[in-house]
């Protein structure tokens, strides 16, 4: 039997499908996983001035701040993807986001000066981290970190670890546009996930980004400009945090750049769906399929 459990957190809906004989036990497991996700929401939030992530914006060069383990791990993953994509993914983009929004959240267009000032304080290389001490430091004052494009994926990975702990592993964990498939339902090869066309996932994460997702803006950290009208991109990776981050990176990268990235990382692949609903699988070089 497959059971469905849902929980609102991190401004989204987490939906877990669990195949397990004992519905009550599956529910208890999900309750504990959701409990940890609520904790992560607090630890990774940038909205509450008392969190580590919000406090980074107050740091001056030479200040050192200890991060909680989860804030550190999530930020480390973000920095890794940033370095690896030459800054196409970048969680220091908070100032750019802020420049494109009014205080009440409605969109606005910043002046060139405003944008330049925001870009001054953007760039993954402005953050420094040390694993031994779990310190973070900045090269400039006023770096605003926003983990919105990786936090949900990170939370799914943490949930997966709890599923492993409980020994219940036939499950599909999802948060908005990121899904993490653990073991498949009995007798199946994977969980069917609908990416315009269905795909089968097992022990793998998939994340999509694109204009289809709630009209939400994605900015190119390399230019500070919003990216409009691209095709939809699906990213497949071994962990949800990685897939989540890469789906944003791939949305701003060119097809050639994506292809190159996938070539360099055996464990990552990407599927681009264009406006005619043709898809290009950049991993297996399947080329165009109709």
């Amino acid at each position, binding site marked *: 039997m497959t059971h469905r459990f849902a929980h609102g957190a991190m401004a989204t809906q987490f939906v877990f499908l669990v195949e397990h004989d004992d519905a009550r036990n599956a*529910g*208890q*497991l999900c*309750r*504990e996983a959701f*409990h940890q996700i609520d904790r992560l929401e607090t630890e990774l939030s940038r*909205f*509450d*001035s*008392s*969190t*580590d992530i*919000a*406090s980074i914006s107050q740091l001056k060069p030479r200040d*050192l701040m*200890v991060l*909680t*383990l989860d804030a550190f791990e999530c930020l*480390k*993953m973000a*920095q*890794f993807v940033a*370095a*690896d994509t030459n800054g196409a993914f970048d969680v220091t983009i908070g100032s750019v986001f802020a420049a494109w929004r009014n205080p009440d959240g409605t969109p606005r267009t910043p002046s060139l000066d405003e944008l330049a000032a925001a870009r001054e304080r953007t760039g993954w290389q402005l953050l*420094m981290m*040390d*694993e*031994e*001490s*779990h*310190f*973070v*430091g900045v090269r400039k004052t006023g770096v605003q970190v926003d983990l919105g494009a990786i936090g949900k994926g990170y939370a799914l*990975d943490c949930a*997966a670890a709890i599923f492993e702990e*409980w*020994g219940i592993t036939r499950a599909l964990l999802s948060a908005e546009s990121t899904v*993490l498939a653990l073991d498949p339902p009995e007798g199946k090869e994977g969980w069917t996930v609908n990416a*315009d066309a*269905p*795909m*089968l*996932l*097992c*022990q*793998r*994460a998939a994340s999509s980004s694109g204009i289809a997702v709630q009209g939400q803006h994605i900015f190119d950290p390399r230019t500070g400009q919003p990216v409009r009208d691209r095709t939809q991109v*699906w990213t*497949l990776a*071994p*962990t949800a*945090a990685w897939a989540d981050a890469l789906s944003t990176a791939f949305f701003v990268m060119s097809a050639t750049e994506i292809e190159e990235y996938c070539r360099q990382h*055996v*464990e*990552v*692949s990407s*599927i681009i769906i264009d406006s005619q609903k043709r*898809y290009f*699988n950049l*991993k297996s070089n399947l080329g165009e399929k109709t």
Partner: protein
Amino acid sequence: MNIEVPNGMTRRQFITAGAAASAWLAMSKTGLAQAAAAAPPSDQVNVALVGCGDQGRVLVNACLKIPCVKFRAVCDIWPYAQRYGSRYLGKYGHETNVYADYREMLEKEKGLDAIICASPDWMHSPITCAALEAGKHVYCEKLMSNTVEGAKQMVLTQRKTGKLLQIGHQRRSNPRYLHAKNKIIDEAHLLGRITHASGQWHNVKKDDRTCAAKYELDEATLKKFGYDDMHQLLNWRWFKKYGGGPICDLGAHQIDMFTWFLNANPKAVIASGGIDYYKTHEWYDNVITVFEYDTKDGVARSMYDVLTTTGSLGFLEKYMGIEGSMVISEMPRWNQVFREKATAPEWTVWGEKGLVKRVEDTAAANAEEKKAAEVDVRLAASPPPETWEIPVLLDKPPHQPHLENFFEAIRKGAPLNCPAEVGYRSAVAVLKVNEAVVAQKRLEFKPEEYRI
């Protein structure tokens, strides 16, 4: 037609991408490692944590930001929590010994200076008293104890030993609360005579806690430490033996704030509550109370409710006076000070002094214009209050300032923000609420109830 999912490493083969990220971080020379290593050592306070559940972990995270704190031991009756705590601390370079029994820990760990107690409420008193007797300073979570007798023992033991005892009502060290109380209310008297306070803590419906079967404690161990079963250990706050229910768990914070802000202990209480929703609990899932106070300015009353089946508006307190009112919370968004235009002098001068900050309210400005044009009698009878805010933000984890105050007291003799007597008076006030629910009538506090 299916999308073909290309092969590649699976999640299990590649359990954490974190490993790749770590390898990358180790390779990238950021220069921070050196700076971190050079961070000045300060005189250390050797600390043990007792009770490594949710709150124990929150306190650990806050302590890791206080350079003088060195964890030496973790004590929890549950190996799962014990392991979690010691592994977590190990990652931050704190090597800790682990114990199940706090008595054994106190006997063996000779070098400890202080204990942080985040056990279920019923163990606060025995753990704290034993630690004080062993010559340790103690930071003990609120509610001080689930019984008045237990709390009294703590005060007496503190006095006898002369060691420090800080009770974990962390708002008493929160810079926003300190500013609101010391500057806005006491110094500038901006609210005028405060006649009423209200507050709430609303938590969304939650199912009971459980754990993976393989981590359940065996019956013998549970019995040894006084728990009937695993369900009660994990959900202790709902059972009469171990805690006082939501009014003690959540209400304790805000009822303590009323006492502080009104500068008076409650003199009477009425309350209503019940087990109206949950089927597996002993304690009331909701309680609504009214307290009466004799403040130096006159009588004041407070209304407070704790609900655990709705998250509506979260948790906040409100103070209402003749000249103004204030909404405040540990949640940053509740931060408003309203000037009653009809009764209060201008606050411009206080704005200039930085005591309060004006919030530009466009809606009110529009209403003003409209009023000028149309002469709205209702608006004229009761002008909308003018909105200001408390210009102080908490930019640290909520418990950090309170822990800092505790460690400052140990190292430099700073006065504690919530010493034993203060925690005791709060416990007396809070615990009476449950009595009032049973009594179904107004209960009075005798002044000597607050004295030891």
